[in-house]
Structures are given as C-alpha cells and as structure tokens.
C-alpha cells in the first residue's frame, strides 16, 4: 500500500510542474472527476470475477491434465504432452478471439463475453498449471507413495491425503505467480468488449481524450489489485507453513 501512495504522490508532484497533465479528469474533488473515477473503478468487479473464476477452473483442469502426465502408461503421458504443448503455444489474445468469434460457429451456441473470457483464460492457464502440478508432485519422495501403499490407501486417497497436500505447499509460490499473471491477462478480454478495468479506461479515453492520466490510473488500479493478491498469497503460504510445525 505504501508503494501506491508514493507512486501517487510522485505522479501528482509531476503534474504540478508540467503543463501537459490534466488531472481534473480523475480528480475526486471535482464532480466530473469523481464520476470518471467511479466509472474506472467499476471495472474492478469483472476483472476480479473473471480472473478468479478462470483460475479456479484452470487449477482443476490443470490438475486433471497433470495426473496422466505422471502415469506409467505412455498414452496417458502422451495426452498430457500434447495438451500442454498445444495449449501453451496459443497466444492468449488469439485464444480469446477464437473462443468468442470462432467457437459459436462450431458449437452453434452464442457465448457471453464473460464466459468466452473465462474459457480462454482458463484453458490457456491450465497448461501452465498442469506443468506446475506435475513438478510439485514429482518433487515428493517416492517413500511417501510406498508408505501409503503399505497402509492400503488407494490411488485417489494417496493423492488426496498424502501427495497433493505436500505438493501444493511446495507449489504455492508458483500458483501465486499464475494468479497474478491471470489478473493481468484478463485485460486482454477488453478487446471483445468485456466491461473490466482496461475496457472502462479505453472508453473513458475516447470521451475525455486524456490518455496519460486515465491510463496512469488504470496502471495504479492493477498495481493495487496485484499487491493485495500478493499479500493474500503470502499470508496463505505462511499459514500453511506454520500449520506444519
């Protein structure tokens, strides 16, 4: 939070010594500025909802894709490789356009901007999640599986009670990374008309013609959001670590 205040103060300071700034467009003390500011911040709802929905789905799909990748069966491993390599190779923006404009033509169903965004982001991210899970699970000692075998746990219970709880602790920093990445990439869904932070800023720029100030606010919005997310991830990491002692 300190960082935001410092950055904000710096920006205001700069504005006072240059004629090119026009903070009035987002000045909360002015009636018009306040309306504009509220308009910009109103995008937060969809940015957060979109990112959180997408990451939840991508974690589940990622796990389901990671598990076959650890199988002794080569066809299951092959499925994992093909999925990861293909999905990972598609730029997120391209996937968003394809899902929103292309998918309805194949499926015959129109799709809302929100769900197009969720599907594209979740799909794209799931390949990365799958690799993170695979790395985490592979890092668990073989002896844990063997001990689990000797107390008669089946595969699902072994994963659920023994392997995943340990693996997830280890991959939390990487999962946090993906969450931050996803929040940022959600800005791309603005191109198909999703009313999130970036889209709101773009729309305001068109009417106010003050890109410098408006995009600066946009930048600060993302910064604040991501600092909050980072803090939550850190807190979660600490909590999980202390639980273990």
């Amino acid at each position, binding site marked *: 939070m300190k960082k935001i205040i410092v950055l904000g103060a710096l920006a205001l300071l700069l504005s006072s010594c240059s004629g090119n700034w026009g903070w009035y467009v987002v000045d909360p003390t002015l009636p018009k500025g306040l309306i504009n500011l509220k308009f910009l911040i109103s995008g937060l709802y969809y940015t957060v909802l979109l990112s959180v929905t997408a990451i939840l789905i991508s974690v589940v799909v990622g796990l389901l894709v990671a598990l076959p990748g650890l199988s002794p069966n080569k066809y299951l491993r092959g499925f994992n490789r093909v999925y990861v390599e293909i999905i990972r190779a598609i730029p997120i923006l391209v996937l968003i356009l394809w899902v929103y404009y292309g998918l309805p033509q194949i499926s015959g169903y129109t799709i809302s901007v929100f769900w197009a965004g969720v599907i594209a982001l979740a799909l794209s991210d799931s390949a990365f999640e799958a690799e993170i899970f695979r790395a985490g699970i592979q890092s668990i*000692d073989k*002896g*844990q599986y*063997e*001990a689990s*075998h*000797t*107390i*008669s*746990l*089946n595969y699902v*219970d072994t994963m659920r*009670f*023994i392997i995943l*709880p*340990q693996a997830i*602790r280890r991959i939390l920093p990487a999962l946090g990374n993906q969450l931050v990445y996803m929040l940022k990439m959600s800005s791309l869904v603005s191109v198909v008309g999703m009313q999130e932070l970036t889209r709101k800023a773009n729309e305001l720029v068109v009417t106010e013609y003050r890109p410098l100030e408006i995009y600066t606010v946009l930048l600060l919005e993302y910064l604040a959001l991501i600092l909050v997310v980072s803090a939550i991830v850190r807190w979660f990491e600490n909590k999980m670590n202390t639980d*273990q*002692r």
Partner: protein
Amino acid sequence: MADGQSTNQPIIEIESISKFFGEFQALKNVSLNVNLGERVVICGPSGSGKSTLIRCINQLEHHETGEIQVDSVELDGSKDALNAIRANVGMVFQQFNLFPHLTVLENLSLGQIRARGKSKTEARELSMQYLERVRIPEQADKFPRQLSGGQQQRVAIARSLCMEPKILLFDEPTSALDPEMINEVLDVMVELAESGMTMICVTHEMGFARKVADTMVFMDHGEIVENCSPDKFFDQPDSQRCRDFLQKILHH
C-alpha cells in the same frame, strides 16, 4: 535366542523368483519359506538383493519369474492379490517415510479410517494403544519433524501395527538412526518378536539377530547363500562368503 513360538504353518512361500532392473539381475532364483510366527533376519552386503526380496513380498517391486504366495494368496500382479497382501503385510522403512504434513496421531489413523472404514474415535483409540506400546503416547499431537529419529521410527512401527498386519517387514530400520537411538527401536522390535508377530528383518544388528531370529538368511549377489539357524550361522556358516561378511561386520 529364539523361544520357539514359530509354527509349522507356512505363511510366505517364495519359489525361485527372479527380478531384473534393466540389465542388472537383483534376484536370482530365490526361494524362501516363512512360517507363521517365525522371525527371519536377512543380512548381506549392500546390493545383495535383501531389500528387493522383501519389497517383492509386499509388491513394492514385482518379480519377473517364479511364484510368491502370501497367506495362500498367489501374487500374480492382479489387483485383488495386491489388496490382499497390502492388508496383511506391513512395512517399516529405513527412512521412516512418515507423512510430514500430518500429526503422529493422523499418521496412525489415516489408514484405519480410509482403508479399514473405522470411525475417527475407533481409530484414535487403537492408535493411542499402539503409541503406548512403542512408548511415546505423549507425542500424539506433534508433527514428525518435531521428533527424534528413534521416535519417528517407533511411530512408523506403530503406524504399521495399526493396520493389524499378519506379517511385518523391516527394511534396515536402524540404518538411518544415530547410534544412541538404535536401541530404543530395537527394544520395540524385540518386544514385537516376543509377542509372536511374523517378522522379516533386513538388518545388520547382529545382537538383535542373535536375540530374536529363528532363521538367519545371508544373501550375496542376488542369491540366498545361507539359510539356517542363528547358532549355525554365527558359529559355523557353510560358505566362505558368509564367514568373510561376518568377520567384517563383527570385527570391531
């Protein structure tokens, strides 16, 4: 010395099994019979196939040729056979392999609850009973990393006992321990042996072997070289390899 609790009822019958790791043959036509209540100690130089042999008994490794019957169940690689032997055969590992994210009590209860369908209270009761037997009931709510090596290994033994197996396998249970902790683990194992548990121990603790073993097995290069009573084993083993080995480990 053995106190004669061993019966004549065979519970493990191993018939000339072989096991390969790639080109390397870890077991060469190994045969071994173990009776209910018998205490077998297996020793031999490292890489001689001792661990592989006992890991085949509970199917952590799968033998390529030959036959293993445990409690009249043929280990043919089928799921039913696997489930049957897992229920009957417990194992204690060199590295303990406790679950680090669970408390001692949870380590002991998990298998009972998930694999045996016991209630939490039932599981807790039995867990505490076995923790008392290995003499660390006061550590029930701690995490494994808070315990000493010797305590961890005793928890691991209790965890196996909680599944109420007919046979317990020990894979060098004291090799990863600091010297001053070896005895607390061996004491528990001696007590178990005296209670009539069928045990197969891979260990180099010859004092323990003399005390509890009904049968001594010496392995070298994937073969059983010697299979005899402890008296014969320690005083007049047949093979030169065994004599050399004993001289090495008893000579200081």
